[in-house]
């Protein structure tokens, strides 16, 4: 019995809520229709994952949805330049709830090796991300593991718990998803990659 049972006064109501949650969540998790937002090299590994050898159709992602209207999970496979940022934001907004985001690859998650003027340093400054898949490009098994993590996350959600329900997260009044200080702090180069900026 999850912690929901402790909140609701009535035992039978709790059991019913758990049953509905289990039914809804497992059906959602096992039939995720991916929206492949494939931009760069990770898109090729994404295609290899979709092809017959690794075949993520085994995990319920048989049908790829190329329009956000029928998509459940937005998989950003590849680096995201600033020119493409409004596109992914618009596509994310046009996906119906419940929707999730997998950030596939180092470039989507952190900007990767492209710490320069053209690249968004991690798509979480643009759209809320649920699962980050490391790797450049991540092996198909890595992406599948990311999908399984997402399944686990979906099975933990609940329709009746306001805090764990999927609600829209629009941009704030300044047109940003995070506060400017947070974006600057997240986009700073980390580790010792700072000396890469000497040009001679």
């Amino acid at each position: 019995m999850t912690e929901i049972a402790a909140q609701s006064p009535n035992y039978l109501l709790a059991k019913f809520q758990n049953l509905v949650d289990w039914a809804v969540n497992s059906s959602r998790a096992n039939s995720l229709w991916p929206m492949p937002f494939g931009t760069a090299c990770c898109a090729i590994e994404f295609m290899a994952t979709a092809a017959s050898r690794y075949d993520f159709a085994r995990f319920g992602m048989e049908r790829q949805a190329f329009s956000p209207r029928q998509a459940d999970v937005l998989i950003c496979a590849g680096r995201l330049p600033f020119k493409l940022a409004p596109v992914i934001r618009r596509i994310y907004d046009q996906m119906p709830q419940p929707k999730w985001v997998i950030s596939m690859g180092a470039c989507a998650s952190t900007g990767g090796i492209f710490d320069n003027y053209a690249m968004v340093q991690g798509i979480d400054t643009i759209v809320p991300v649920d699962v980050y898949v490391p790797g450049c490009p991540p092996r198909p098994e890595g992406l599948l593991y990311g999908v399984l993590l997402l399944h686990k996350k979906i099975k933990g959600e609940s329709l009746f718990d306001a805090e764990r329900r999927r609600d829209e997260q629009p941009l704030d009044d300044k047109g940003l998803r995070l506060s400017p200080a947070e974006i600057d702090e997240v986009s700073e180069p980390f580790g010792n990659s700072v000396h890469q900026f000497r040009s001679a």
Partner: protein
Amino acid sequence: MTSQIDLIPGRLREAVARDGETIVYVARERLLEAMTWLQQTPGQEYDYLVDVTAVEYRDRERAIEVVYFLRSLSRKTDLRVKVELQASDELTVDSVWGLWHGADWLEREVYDMFGIAFRGHPDLRRILMWETYAEGFPLRKDFPLRGRFSRAEQVRQALNANPEAHYSLDELSIADAWGDIPDDMRERLKRGERGTVPE
């Protein structure tokens, strides 16, 4: 065949690169004349334009070079034509689009990355960055690697551009001809605020 080189109109000097290609420096004013001569005279027939690019050196006094890679498919020879532009004066060169249509996008990219304008180019707009990119010309040596604005400002500019900033003026005129432009966009276009990002 190098004896032919000094017949090029507007030739200043020539050199040999480390990969054995001959380089010809041509005066900026007579570039188009030289290129037409190279393409059309029977002995030369440089009918294939391999690439157009620009080079800016780390020490500022050296001139910015616009480099044209030419190739004659029939004679299987290559030639590299360079035009030197002093960074101080105006960075404009004649466009070779009239001679080789392949130069269309190459020159637009050099304009986008270096700010070198090509006179006579049919549609000189930015091609790699979005048209209303305000931070400058990325491949110039004075342009910082991570861009001039802060990351938050770059994200804000990218996410909040006006809808018409995504379209070139060609497409806006097409849409306008079929009456597809909404009124608020028409007002902004009249005021010429295509690139400004609302606060």
